[in-house]
């Protein structure tokens, strides 16, 4: 009895004076404010990583060395990968999780608000370490984002800075994932059973478990690298009884689930957007949930397909080939379900829907080329060529990034209470999809013809396609400034958005007014 009374008057319920200025953001424990921080951070990193890509494409515009020395070129390809994966795409999805998950499950906030703040504020120091490593003696690490030993053992102090940055990013991801999983499992409104959760929540639940499982594996890999570099261990040195390939096994045991970490929340977003603009419930909800879980399990069984050329015997070669081909089945189910959702719906094509349909079209190309690469013998020709570069940009850019644009246009009116400029947003979509394909489709041809990736200069037969890709990249890069303009314009002076925003919108977040109040669902709604 006593305890209950004490809880009722606990200081948490008392109104706290709002902090102002920088202290508000440094000390915020509000899920919406932290979500905003994540999204601003990730967009800044997206611009940084994108600028690096433009430098790379400028060098590759013509054969010969024009702007970049080979060592700087390698630093840029490495940091482009690290920054886009760990600085841009992952934090962006965490930002959406922060904003949306509590509102979608009827919770007042995340389960661990202070941990949430801590998780975000680990990111800026990590970004400073990564960017600062360019100024270390010898420059940033140039071993590729995969950091393969023993090349990474050769690198200068920039490599150590990257290792510490990865540790910080890893801790941030792990606390974020624990927070998200706990929120989903314990903070749902009464009546919202697991099988009533929106798909975005489901995909994030599976993603959170993947993160908790694999980030420590990555941390251990880079720690072994650190001790090999400085403390005389020989984990990856054959002369000391180690094995360079061990690093690849550990890295890809993390790395493959990692790419599903980057795509599952995207699947969730698409599964929210398409029903809304089809004015129809999601087709095959139960099979969507099963497919998400199946992808989560398969994620741990396919890492060897990144290593088909290290010299496996027939056994592992076949095992990883079959397991990888199986991934196509649950992924296909998702794709078919989205089309099933559109079937006999009442479709409109506002910017979120355009990006969602664009996602399906281009992600399909990424998916089927994944099947081509899964065939081990064919992969031997394509491994480490531009075919692979094209394939994963079709899944990561056209997949993850397009879903992030869809999500921004979809939920921004709810967050800000203002509508974005539809015409400009459609232009953003049109330019993005044209220039994206111009950049990356020709890379399939380059890869088939045998152009290796990560080279600053290339034989003459690859010149034409590289020129096309570079022009496309410039177009794609500068089109993203339009996105920035649309978002800023929306926040500053967009027209008033209604509470429901979209005609077909269903779900708890749309029952709130727009803009969503800072504290929502303090009294949980009841789901029937």
């Amino acid at each position, binding site marked *: 009895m006593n305890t209950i009374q004490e809880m009722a008057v606990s200081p948490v319920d008392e109104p706290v004076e709002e902090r102002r200025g920088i202290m508000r953001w440094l000390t915020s424990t509000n899920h919406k404010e932290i979500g905003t921080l994540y999204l601003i951070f990730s967009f800044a990193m997206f611009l940084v990583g994108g600028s690096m890509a433009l430098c790379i494409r400028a060098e590759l515009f013509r*054969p010969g*060395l024009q702007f970049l020395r*080979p*060592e700087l070129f*390698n630093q840029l390809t490495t940091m482009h990968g690290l920054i886009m994966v760990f600085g841009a795409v992952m934090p962006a999805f965490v930002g959406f999780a922060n904003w949306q998950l509590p509102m979608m499950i009827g919770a007042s906030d995340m389960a661990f608000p202070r941990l949430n703040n801590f998780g975000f504020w680990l990111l800026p120091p990590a970004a400073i370490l990564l960017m600062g490593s360019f100024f270390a003696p*010898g420059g940033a690490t140039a*071993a*590729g984002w995969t950091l*393969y030993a*023993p*090349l990474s*053992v*050769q690198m*200068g*102090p920039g490599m150590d800075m990257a290792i510490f940055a990865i540790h910080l990013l890893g801790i941030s991801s792990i606390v974020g994932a624990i927070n998200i999983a706990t929120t989903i499992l314990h903070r749902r409104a009464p009546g919202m059973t697991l099988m009533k959760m929106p798909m975005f929540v489901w995909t994030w639940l599976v993603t959170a478990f993947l993160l908790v499982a694999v980030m420590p594996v990555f941390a251990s890999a880079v720690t072994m690298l650190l001790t090999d570099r400085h403390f005389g261990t020989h984990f990856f040195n*054959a002369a000391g009884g180690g094995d*360079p*390939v061990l690093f690849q096994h550990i890295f890809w045991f993390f790395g493959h689930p990692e790419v599903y970490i980057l795509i599952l929340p995207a699947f969730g977003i698409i599964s929210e957007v398409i029903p809304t603009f089809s004015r*129809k*419930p999601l*087709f095959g*909800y139960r099979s969507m949930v099963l497919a998400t879980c199946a992808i989560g399990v398969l994620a741990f069984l396919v890492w060897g397909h990144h290593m088909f*050329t290290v*010299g496996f015997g*027939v056994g592992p*070669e076949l095992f990883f*080939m079959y397991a990888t*081909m199986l991934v196509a*089945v649950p992924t296909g*189910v998702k794709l078919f379900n989205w089309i*099933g959702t*559109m*079937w*006999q*719906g*009442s*479709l*409109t094509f506002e910017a979120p829907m355009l990006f969602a349909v664009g996602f399906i079209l281009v992600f*399909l*190309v990424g998916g*089927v080329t994944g*099947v*081509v690469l899964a*065939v*081990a*013998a*064919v992969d*031997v*020709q394509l*491994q*480490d060529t531009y075919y692979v570069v094209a394939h994963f940009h079709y899944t990561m850019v056209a997949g993850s990034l397009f879903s992030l644009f869809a999500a921004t246009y979809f939920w921004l009116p709810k967050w800000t209470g203002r509508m974005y400029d539809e015409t400009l947003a459609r232009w953003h979509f049109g330019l993005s999809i044209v220039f994206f394909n111009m950049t990356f489709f020709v890379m399939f*041809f380059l890869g*088939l*013809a*045998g152009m290796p*990736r*990560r080279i600053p*200069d290339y*034989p003459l037969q690859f010149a034409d396609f590289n020129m096309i890709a570079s022009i496309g990249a410039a177009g794609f890069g500068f089109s993203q400034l339009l996105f920035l303009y649309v978002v800023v314009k929306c926040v500053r002076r967009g027209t008033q958005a209604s509470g429901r925003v979209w005609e*077909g919108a269903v779900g708890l977040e749309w029952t709130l007014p727009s803009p969503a109040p800072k504290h929502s669902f303090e009294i949980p709604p009841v789901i029937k």
Partner: protein
Amino acid sequence: MIRKAPHLLAIAALVSFCRLTRAQSGANFQPPKTQIAHQIYDLHFFVQAICVGICVVIFAVLLYAIARFRKSSRRTAMQFTGYKPVEIAWVIVPVLILLVIAIPATHAVFAMKDTSNSDITVKITGYQWQWRYDYLQEDIGFYSALSTPRAQIENREAKEENYLLEVDHPLVVPVGKKIRILVTANDVIHSWFVPAFGVKQDAIPGFIRDAWFRVDEPGVYRGQCAELCGKEHGFMPIVVNAVSEREFSAWIADQHAAKQIAAQGADAAGAKTYSLEELKSGGEKIYTHNCIACHQPNGQGLPPAFPALANGKTATGPVAGTIHIVMNGSSKNPAMAAWKGQLSDLELASVITFVRNSFGNSAGDLVEPKDIATARQNP
């Protein structure tokens, strides 16, 4: 006509796609020249055809849905949430398609991995940044490095046809013989990749992996290192000269003769005493060929991985220290390779003398081939 435009456009796109994916266009695999490469080529064509088919069907259905089920045509949405038969069908059909792909794919893996009953074995070693080929049955071995002049790379000269795909000493193999390659590396991971052979094998330091090929017709085949191996990764091509069996035997005989002459030359060099100028000018060539990528033309290096030689601690210190690090590599910095296996006594003596007396260094002393011979005997 306007209504037909999309169809015409689609047909044009399809035709140009088919033209692009022909072998000669540079947009498909290079023309296959071994049995495995043929197998991969056909397998890829088969899988790609299935994938293009799947894409066409799904795009068509999607575009139909986009065109047909629009709100603007005053449709109200049907509120169904699933339909069991289709949901089961689109699990089973993909599984069946995958099975159809898996059968030839499995055969190809078995064929690729069968390195038994080979006629000739060549050991291939990756170095930063060149290849070494050792014919194990013949006791012949040599290094193979990029021969494209720096001036072409830095755009000071026009680029020639085989830009970045030419080497000083290509690998020579006879056609029609099963060649087994044993692939390893000396420093970091490289990857030996010749597209026309369907061979890509990572070269892993401390481990030996094998692969094989049998070339159908004589010719010069070119490839590149396929695993990021440091700053000159883009500049270590592979060239294979496939010749008739008779030419191959003649080439082997030439190699043996050349080896004997080189050995006699080395003996003579060991006995001879060279002047500072002779050693420096010889050393400059060795430096340009082997050292310049890391230590740079002006000897300033790229610290910290590649230290400066100009006024460098080891380069200007006691001569024994310089000889030791050039011959055995650095125990502290794995980027500095051991050169005693790659260079002859005269070459080592020349390059060490060059380094100690260039870039403003003025040790004044010179290292003779016999000093290196002594160092080889007392490591």
